[in-house]
């Protein structure tokens, strides 16, 4: 039986309480909401916090409500099931509904939260292994070791951003609200991520993601496509999030963000800029897919070989854009 290491469990009753508990216990403490990412890691001894601050009882963190600015606010403690099923998310932020609904399994989505998925630990098949396994390879720099086993000459960790919702939220131009000892702040979600497998979030450890704020939905079309071996359980080995804001048939804004090809959600700005001011024709889509393919630099640390994942970036970006354009996903042979 894989078991959790011992810890003290402190149930926060409010965001302020959680912030205080985190401050009180400093680096000994970790936050837990759904636990679906943290507990497996704790069982493999990637984390052994002395204190867990549980967010489950913080009612303020749960729910979906309209934002004053005209968008939507989703509490970070809202389960992925609830996000995927929310009528407004489904109609206005299709990409997010697809991404939340594509995380792992129904059971896991019933437990896992949007905030948890946004903060999902980066993954690597040298890292997501048991303690004994990692010990056998002398550990890696992400935990207990010295070097990156994927790229031994590299000074950095190449663990992969494996969140499904993060690329979509980046492509939607969402913001996250953070609560910490210094008060609240709101940042664009793309500013939450850092291109480092270990230090992959810019937030302070004691800061809590409380809300995800989505922009107004008018003219917004979004989609998320996920490459994985199976239709369930599997993390993305490539995620393509594409969002366009249309004015009639003309693209006014566009954002393409790739998941699982780097330590953070990787934007493909060149591809997106090709679309702006244009109509989404099959030819334009093919050109954009070519451009989006370039920034994808997957390494050999997930399921499927990285050359294949790189190759599929073009296919998946094209399919995502074709879907946004209302074209059949796969061109007729």
């Amino acid at each position, binding site marked *: *039986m*894989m*078991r*959790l*290491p*011992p*810890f*003290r*469990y402190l*149930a926060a009753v409010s965001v302020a309480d959680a912030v205080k508990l985190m401050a009180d216990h400093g680096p000994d403490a970790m936050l837990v909401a759904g*636990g*679906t990412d943290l*507990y*497996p890691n704790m*069982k*493999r001894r990637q984390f052994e916090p002395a204190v867990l601050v*549980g967010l*489950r*009882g913080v009612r303020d963190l749960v729910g979906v409500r309209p934002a004053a600015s005209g968008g939507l606010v989703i509490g970070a403690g809202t389960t992925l099931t609830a996000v995927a099923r929310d009528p407004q998310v489904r109609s206005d932020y299709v990409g997010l509904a697809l991404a939340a609904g594509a995380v*792992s*399994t*129904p*059971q*896991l989505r*019933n*437990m896992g939260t949007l905030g948890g998925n946004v903060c999902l630990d980066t993954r690597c098949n040298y890292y997501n292994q048991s303690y004994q396994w990692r010990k056998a390879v002398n550990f890696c720099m992400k935990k207990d070791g010295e070097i990156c086993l994927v790229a031994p000459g590299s000074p950095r960790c190449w663990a992969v951003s494996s969140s499904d919702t993060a690329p979509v939220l980046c492509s939607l131009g969402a913001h996250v609200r953070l609560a910490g000892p210094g008060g609240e702040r709101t940042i664009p979600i793309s500013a939450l991520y850092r291109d480092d497998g270990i230090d992959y979030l810019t937030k302070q450890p004691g800061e809590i993601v409380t809300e995800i704020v989505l922009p107004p939905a008018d003219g917004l079309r979004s989609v998320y496509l996920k490459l994985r071996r199976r*239709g*369930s*359980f599997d993390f993305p080995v490539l995620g393509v999030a594409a969002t366009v804001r249309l004015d009639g048939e003309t693209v006014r804004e566009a954002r393409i963000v790739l998941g699982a090809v780097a330590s953070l959600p990787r934007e493909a700005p060149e591809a997106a800029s090709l679309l702006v001011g244009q109509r989404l024709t099959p030819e334009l889509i093919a050109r954009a897919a070519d451009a989006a393919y370039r920034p994808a630099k997957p390494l050999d640390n997930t399921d499927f070989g990285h050359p294949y994942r790189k190759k599929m970036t073009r296919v998946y970006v094209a399919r995502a854009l074709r879907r946004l354009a209302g074209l059949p996903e796969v061109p007729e042979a």
Partner: protein
Amino acid sequence: MKTRLSLRINGEERDVLADTHKTLLEVLREDLHLTGTKHGCELGECGTCTVLVGGTPVLSCLALPIECQGVEIKTVEGMARGHELHPLQQAFVELGAAQCGYCTPGILLTAEALLEELPMPTRDEIRHALAGNLCRCTGYTKILDAVELAALRMRQGEMPPPASRAEAEGARP
């Protein structure tokens, strides 16, 4: 460190003193001897340990019992009412949907939650609802058949689920 837990499991109040870091799976099996809940990986990668918390299928290997207090927990032992099987259990018996039977408890409970929410699921909807429960014996075919059969019987009122029947009776003056 131990925590005193007050859990409501299968309609019974159970008080138990258990290590704080024990998962719901471990407390159910080891402290309460409810061994009907099985485990296949303890990492949330198979669905075998699924139980219902507040009617929702969750992975007991990744749930802390301390967070499940005050909510009804249902394990496979709580599905039948006395000797009266839940229509899903009855259909699994009749259609051979349990081979080795190891994944069966988790699948039954996941299916129960599905039928509670969606009394007339399509086969595809059943597939999606059970996509988080691995089975290595059946090829899922008889499982899908059995869920369909149970749904049909529950709709036709041939075999209402024991729990909802009781509620219906209780609601009458």
